[in-house]
């Protein structure tokens, strides 16, 4: 495989995968259980999910390590198994996709609020990210995907941790924005413009947004990234916001609905398209078709 960043700089559009949590819940993960414990108990399930997304056309497969930082795992008394938990997730994804797709380590927020407004020291958070990222890099991931960040300081610590561990590994950093009467901001008050400036300064290679919105708002967020950043932009939309009215969680946006709007993402120059909560291999297959059709037309 050619290095991921080379393909992006050549102008290629890459397709990431869809939701992991949605797939795990569909496969029997119970609420309150640690999603990353699956890595220890059922690595076969991780291989199956990776294969489904690969078959759907993903170029990039994420690992089940979103909550694999020591602070997060400590909630389940699993922090002493952090290396094993992160390594097995990478191994499972790699076994499933081989060299047919890039394996990207998902790195989520630590679940704590940082000082001075919160109670957790940035040093502890940084050390946690270093430990997690060291484990996935040692196992041979192709990229580090820092995701769902709302706090600029925490996102910056994660990017720097990745850079500390490997100066060359491709790093993607995405934040989650809410629509407000004054535009898009993360819950911690970060605008898209601020994210572009600060995440780039911290050393990320790829920048963008995941989660928190359906595809229509994500198109608007993508437009802001396109305006404020010169880095390759990644957009991973939810399949709408969860509707729980029937007692089960339903995400309303269909593969076709979302895929049709992927054209707008392509028009804005978005370079990696994927899905977040509620998206499935069916969504990814529809995105694949849209991307292929569109790029085929352009060629």
């Amino acid at each position, binding site marked *: 495989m050619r290095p991921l960043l080379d393909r992006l700089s050549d102008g290629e559009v890459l397709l990431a995968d869809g939701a992991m949590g949605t797939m795990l819940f569909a496969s029997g993960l119970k*609420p*309150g259980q640690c999603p990353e414990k699956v890595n220890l108990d059922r690595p076969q399930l991780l291989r199956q999910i990776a294969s489904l997304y690969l078959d759907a056309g993903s170029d990039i497969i994420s690992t089940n390590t979103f909550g694999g930082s020591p602070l997060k795992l400590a909630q389940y008394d699993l922090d002493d198994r952090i290396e094993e938990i992160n390594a097995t997730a990478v191994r499972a994804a790699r076994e499933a996709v081989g060299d047919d797709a890039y394996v990207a380590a998902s790195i989520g927020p630590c679940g704590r*609020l940082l000082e001075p407004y919160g109670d957790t020291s940035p040093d502890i958070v940084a050390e946690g990210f270093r430990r997690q990222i060291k484990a996935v890099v040692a196992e041979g991931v192709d990229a580090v995907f820092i995701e769902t960040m709302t706090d600029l300081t925490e996102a910056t610590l994660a990017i720097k941790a990745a850079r500390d561990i490997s100066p060359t590994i491709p790093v993607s950093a995405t934040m989650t924005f809410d629509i407000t009467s004054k535009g898009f*901001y993360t*819950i911690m*008050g970060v605008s898209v413009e601020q994210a572009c400036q600060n995440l780039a300064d911290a050393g990320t290679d790829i920048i963008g947004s995941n989660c928190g919105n359906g595809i229509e708002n994500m198109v608007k967020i993508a437009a802001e990234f396109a305006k404020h950043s010169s880095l390759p932009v990644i957009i991973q939309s939810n399949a709408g916001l969860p509707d729980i009215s029937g007692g089960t969680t339903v995400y309303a946006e269909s593969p076709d609905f979302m895929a049709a709007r992927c054209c707008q993402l392509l028009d804005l120059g978005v370079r990696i398209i994927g899905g977040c909560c509620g998206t499935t291999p069916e969504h990814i297959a529809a995105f694949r078709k849209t991307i292929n059709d569109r790029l085929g037309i352009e060629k």
Partner: protein
Amino acid sequence: MDILENISQSLQNGEPDTVAELTGKALDDGVPVKELLHKGLLSGMEVVGERFKAHEIFLPDVLLAAKAMYAGMEVLKPLMVGEEAATSGTVVIGTVQGDLHDIGKNLVGIMLRGAGFNVVDLGKDVPPERFIEEAQRTGARVIGMSALLTTTMPVMGLVVNLARERGLLGKVKIIVGGAPLSDEYAQQIGADAYCFDGMNAVDCVKGFLGIN
């Protein structure tokens, strides 16, 4: 600037040390405790709440202001007696059984304390029985429950049912919050209100207790 305004302003700026220092100074100057509390600290928090709702400031600013609020309260506490010592009321909060997500619940706690309420935080993974027991033990006026998972939300309904069995419904108001929650769901399970964020929870509790 008037020292009370000064305290309010420092609180809005999220400066705990300055707030504590000014509060101490005001006491030395003979400003009554009650006046310090209401016209200095609480009025400052009020402004913070309004600016947060208008998206002029964000969560970190509110959290820093709340810290400044506590710093001022620490200075006042030893001097509070009788009516002054009475808080605006007690609220029991927790994340429901089976759910370990507590950031949202913690924020609600910080903001309620910042608004002058006595908060009993039961933590996360809290069994239904405990909400009820603690509310009875502390004489709480409000129970606040948080859930981030669609699968743990139903526990909130169990707590409402338990409150009904114990004859607490109506006497103790029940508020719920969390990402998957909604007004409709709150109504469906018989809770008194759904709160979409911490500041909204403060407004809700104030409304229930008749505080403007």
